[in-house]
C-alpha cells in the first residue's frame, strides 16, 4: 500500500488530490457542523462569572485588546508566539465551561489548519526547495507543485498573529459586560453613541443569528429544498449550490425587513429612555482602581516596553521583509 501511494502515478495523484481538496473542504464542514450559527452565538456571549478578569477595569481590557492587536503585527514571529503563549494564562484564570472550551478549540483549530495548509500549498519557496511532497503532473492544473515546508512555517506565523488577536478579543468579550464596555468607551473619550452601537451590535448579533436560522427553516417549510446531498452524490451538488444561491435574496427580504422594523422599535425605545438627551451619561456602576488593576497596568507597561525594545533593536526580527 505504501508503495502504491508513494511509488505509482495513480497513488501519488490520489494523495495529491486528497491534500489539495479533501483536507481544505473538510474544514468548513467541520466548522459548520460542530459550531454552526448557534455556536457562534454562544461563543460571543458574555459569561457571567466573578473572576479577577471580570473585575478588572474595562478600560484596561479595551486598551489591552488594542495593544495586543498592534503588537501582533509589529512583532517578529518568535516574540509574537511568546506573547501568544502568555495570553493563554488569562484563559486558565477564566476556566471556561467544557462546552465553551470545545467551541473555542474548534473555532481556533479549524481556520488555523486551513491557513496552515493553504500557505503550505501556495506560498512557494523562492529557491524551489524544501518540499515535503512533490505533486505529479496529473495535479499540475491546481497551480502548485506540492506541499512546502517554507509555506507551512509562514502559515504558522500568520496563524499565531491571527490567533493572538482573536484570542484576546474573545477573552475581553467573555469577561466584560457590554454595559461596562460602553462605560469604558465613554471614559476613553468616545461619545455614548459609539458605546450604544457596540452594545446593540453585541446584544443583537445572537438574535440575528437566531432569526437567520428561523427564516431558513421557514423557507424549507414553504417547500424550498435546502437539504444537502451526500458527499458521494456528486451530480446533485451543482443543483444544491444553485438552490442555496437562489435562496439568498429570498431570505434577505424577511431578515432585512424584520431587522429594520425591529430597529425602528429599538430606536423609539431608546428615545423614550432619553438616550442622547445629554452628551454624557452617568452610570450605576463605576470602576475604582484596585490592586489587581494596578498590577495589570504595570504588566501592560512592561509588555509595551519589551515590545518597543524588540522592535527598536530588531530582537528576533521578522524573517520575511523585517
Amino acid at each position, binding site marked *: 500500500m505504501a508503495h502504491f501511494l508513494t511509488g505509482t502515478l495513480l497513488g501519488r495523484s490520489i494523495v495529491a488530490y486528497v491534500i489539495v481538496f479533501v483536507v481544505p473542504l473538510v474544514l468548513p464542514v467541520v466548522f459548520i457542523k460542530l459550531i454552526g450559527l*448557534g455556536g457562534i452565538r*454562544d461563543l460571543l*456571549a*458574555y459569561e*457571567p462569572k466573578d473572576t479577577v478578569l471580570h473585575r478588572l477595569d474595562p478600560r484596561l481590557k479595551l486598551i489591552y485588546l488594542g495593544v495586543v492587536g498592534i503588537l501582533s503585527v509589529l512583532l517578529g514571529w518568535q516574540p509574537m508566539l511568546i506573547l501568544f503563549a502568555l495570553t493563554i494564562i488569562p484563559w486558565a484564570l477564566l476556566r471556561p465551561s467544557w*462546552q465553551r472550551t470545545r467551541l473555542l478549540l474548534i473555532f481556533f483549530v479549524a481556520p488555523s489548519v486551513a491557513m496552515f495548509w493553504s500557505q503550505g500549498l501556495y506560498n512557494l519557496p523562492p529557491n524551489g526547495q524544501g518540499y515535503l511532497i512533490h505533486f505529479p503532473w496529473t495535479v499540475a492544473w491546481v497551480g502548485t507543485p506540492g506541499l512546502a515546508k517554507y509555506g507551512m512555517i509562514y502559515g504558522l506565523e500568520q496563524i499565531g498573529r491571527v490567533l493572538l488577536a482573536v484570542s484576546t478579543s474573545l477573552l475581553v468579550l467573555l469577561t466584560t*459586560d*457590554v*454595559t461596562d464596555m460602553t462605560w469604558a468607551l465613554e471614559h476613553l473619550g468616545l461619545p455614548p453613541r459609539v458605546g*450604544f452601537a457596540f*452594545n446593540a451590535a*453585541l*446584544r443583537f448579533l*445572537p*438574535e440575528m443569528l437566531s*432569526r437567520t436560522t*428561523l*427564516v431558513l*427553516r*421557514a*423557507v*424549507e*417549510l*414553504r*417547500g*424550498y*429544498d*435546502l*437539504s*444537502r446531498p451526500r458527499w458521494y452524490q456528486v451530480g*446533485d451538488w451543482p*443543483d444544491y449550490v444553485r*438552490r442555496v444561491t*437562489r435562496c439568498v435574496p429570498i431570505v434577505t*427580504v*424577511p431578515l432585512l425587513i*424584520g431587522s429594520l*422594523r*425591529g430597529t425602528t*422599535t*429599538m*430606536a*423609539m*425605545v*431608546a*428615545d*423614550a*429612555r*432619553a*438616550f*442622547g*438627551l*445629554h452628551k*454624557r*451619561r*452617568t*452610570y*450605576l*456602576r*463605576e470602576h475604582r482602581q484596585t490592586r489587581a488593576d494596578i498590577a495589570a497596568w504595570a504588566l501592560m507597561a512592561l509588555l509595551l516596553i519589551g515590545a518597543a525594545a524588540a522592535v527598536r533593536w530588531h530582537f528576533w526580527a521578522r524573517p520575511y521583509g523585517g
Partner: protein
Amino acid sequence: MTVQRPGGQQFPAGQLPAGQLPAGQLPAGQLPAGQLPAGQRRLVVTDLSFRYAGQSRNALSHVNLTVAPGEMVLVTGPSGCGKSTLSLVLAGLAPSRVAGRLAGSVLLGEENISSLEPAQAGQRVGLVFQNPNLQLFHQMVEAEIAFGPENLRLPRQIISERVDASLRRTGATALRKAATFTLSGGEKQRVAIAATLAMEPEVLVLDEPLSDLDPVGAQDVLRSLEALRDERRLAIVLIEHRVDEVLEHVDRVVLLDDGRVVLDRPAADAFADAGPWLAAGVALPEVIQVARGLPEIFTGALPLSVTQAAAVLAASPGVVAGAARPGAPEHSTAGHGAAGGGRMAAESAPVTGDPAQAEEPGPPDGPALAGGQTPGGGLALAGGQTPGGGLALAGGQTPGGGLALAGGQTPGGERASRAGEAAAGVWAGVSLSLGGRQVLDGASLVLHQGEWLALIGANGSGKTTLAGLAVGFEAPDRGSVEIGGAAVRKGSVAAQAERVGFLLQAADEMLFCNSVDDELTFGPRYRRAGVSGAEPAAAGRRSAKRTRLRIMIGSISQAHVLKDRPNDEIGHSGELSQDELLAVLGLQGLGARSPWQLSQGQRQRLALGALLAGAPDLLILDEPTTGQDTGHARAFMTWLEQLRERHGLTYLMITHDMRAVARYASRVAVMAGGRILATGTPAEIFARTDVLTESGIIAPPIARLHLRLAASAGAPPPAAVHLDVQSFLDAVRPRLAPV
C-alpha cells in the same frame, strides 16, 4: 439651585427631570397657576386624529379619551383599528419618530405631550411594546433598568433607588442579577415594564403586553399592573385583545373601531349594549355572555370575572344543585367538539353520557346550525348539534362532547381512523436535549387522522420542539417520530412540507415576496424549481391535492368567514380565483400590496393561506390566534374547522388560547417538563385541576365557572366541564328556582 431629597441628600436641580421635582421646588415659570403637581395630572386626549405619511385614510379619527391617575383603562378593538397608533401618539413617538400628520392634542395636565421630544415625553408617558426582545438592550437585567436613569444623568444613588423600586413594583427583584437571554417571556415583559418605570412616568401605556405570554405569565403581569395602579396611582392604558383575562383588572373599557372611539364606559357598564361589540367583531367575554343569558339571575351589574359570576350564581340554589349533579354536562356540545372526521373516544375518562340523549345524525355537508348565532359570534345550538355535520351519538357520548365510535366512523359519513389505519402522527418516547437542557423527556403522543389536537402547556414546556420533530427540525436523542406511517428524518424539512404544513408562531418570518399574490404562489413556484428529482407520481399527487383544496375553498361562503355572520349559502364549487382566495383570507383588494404593509393579523392569515396552497395532509399551527382580534381569530379558526371536517385534514395546534382549545379542539394534550401529562377531550382536561396546576394552565372562563359552582355546592369535581356558554346556559336554565 439644589433640590433636597427625602433623606437629606441634595442634588443640583438640573440633574433631575421636571417630573422628579416636588411641585413646590419647580423653578419659577415651570408650574403655571392651577396646574396640578406631577403624579396627579390627568391624561386628556382631545379630538385626536392621525394619518401616517403616504396614507389616504386616518389611522385615528377624532379620538377623545381621558385617563386619571390611579385608573387602568383597557383599549381594545379589531386588528387595524388604530390601537398601536394610539399608543405611539400617547407616548409622544408619533409624529416625532413616526412620520404622519397629527391633529388634536394629548395633554398631561397642561403639558402637550406631542410637542415634547421623545426623551422628555418618555418621562411623562412610558410605553411598553408588544415584543420584549426589542426593548431589552442589555445583557443583564440590572443594566437594562438602569439605562434610562443613566441617560438622564441622575446621580448613582438615585439610579440605584429607581432600579430597586422598579424591580420591586414589578415583582422582579429576584431577576436583578439575571442575564436577559435566560428570562422567560413573562419575565422579559416584566423587566421591560420595570425599565420603563425607571423613567418614573405618570402614565404607562402597554401595547399588547400579554400576547406572547402563557395564562399564568399574563396574570403575573396583570397583578403587577394592578399594584402599580393602586400603590403608585399610575394611570395605565392597557391595549389588549385578551379581554376575558384583563376585564376584572381594569376600571374602564374603550372600544376602538376604524380609528374611532365607539365606546368608553366603566368596565361594569361596557357590555350592557352588545351592539358596538358585534359591529366591531369583538366577542363579548364569556362571563358577560352568561350574565346576558341569565338576566333573571344577573339583575345587577354584569360580572367582570369568573369569581363574580360564580358568586351570583351560587346564590341561586337551583343553579348550585344542577352543578352538583353527577355526570354534568349532559348536552355539552363543546362548540363543535363532537363533530368532524376522525373523532376518537376519550382516552382518559369513562363514558358517562346518557344514551337517551343521543341525537340523530345531522346532514353530512355544510354547517348544521339550528337557531341563530348568539351575540358576540357564538353559535346557538339546539339539541346538541354542532357546526360542520352534527352529531351521531350511538350510545356513549362522552361528557365533553367527544364520541365513542362504533366501528371507527364519525357521523355524517366523514373519515375516521380505523383499526389498522396509520395514525397521522406518532411520537414514541421522544427525548431531546438542546443546549444542555432536557427539552423533551420521554414524550409520547398519537395524532389521529382527521382530529384537531391542541397541545397546551406553559412557555418552555417543549410544545414547539415536539411539533418541530414532525417536520425534521431536529432528531430525538431517543424515541421515534412517524408522520403518516413514515419515519421523519432530520433535515428533510422541504420533503416533509409536502405533507405537513407548519405555521410558525412568528408568521412574519414565513413571508418572502414583494406582494400578497406572489406569496400565495411561492410554494408551487419554488417547489417545482427547488426540489430536484421530484417523482412524477409525487408531483401528480400534489397537483391533485391542490385542485382538491381549490375546490373545497370555493365551497365556503366568503361572508361567513370574513365577519362570522350566519352562513347563508353554500358557495360555488370549482377552482377559486386568486381574488376569491384573497377574500376568503380577508385580504380582498390587497393582492398587489406588500405583505409588510398589512397588519399582523393579516400577515398571519396570509402565511397560513400560503401553506394551504400546498394542500398538506397535516397542519401544525403554532399559536395561530396570537395578535389577532377575537373576530378575525374566530372566523379564521371556524374556516379551518370546516376545511378539516369536510376533507379530513388533521391539525396539531399549539396555543395559549384556551378558549380556542375549548371551542375547536377535539382532543387536548397537556405538556409540562418535556412530557405529556394527560390527553383527553377539552371538557375532561379542563376538569383536571391537578394537571392544569402542574402544567401552569388556566382553564377557560366557563370551565372555571363550572368548577367553582361544583365546589361551592360541596360536590366532587366533575369528570368533565362545560366549555361553551350555550351548553352552560342549557344546563343551568332548567334548574333555575322558580321566582
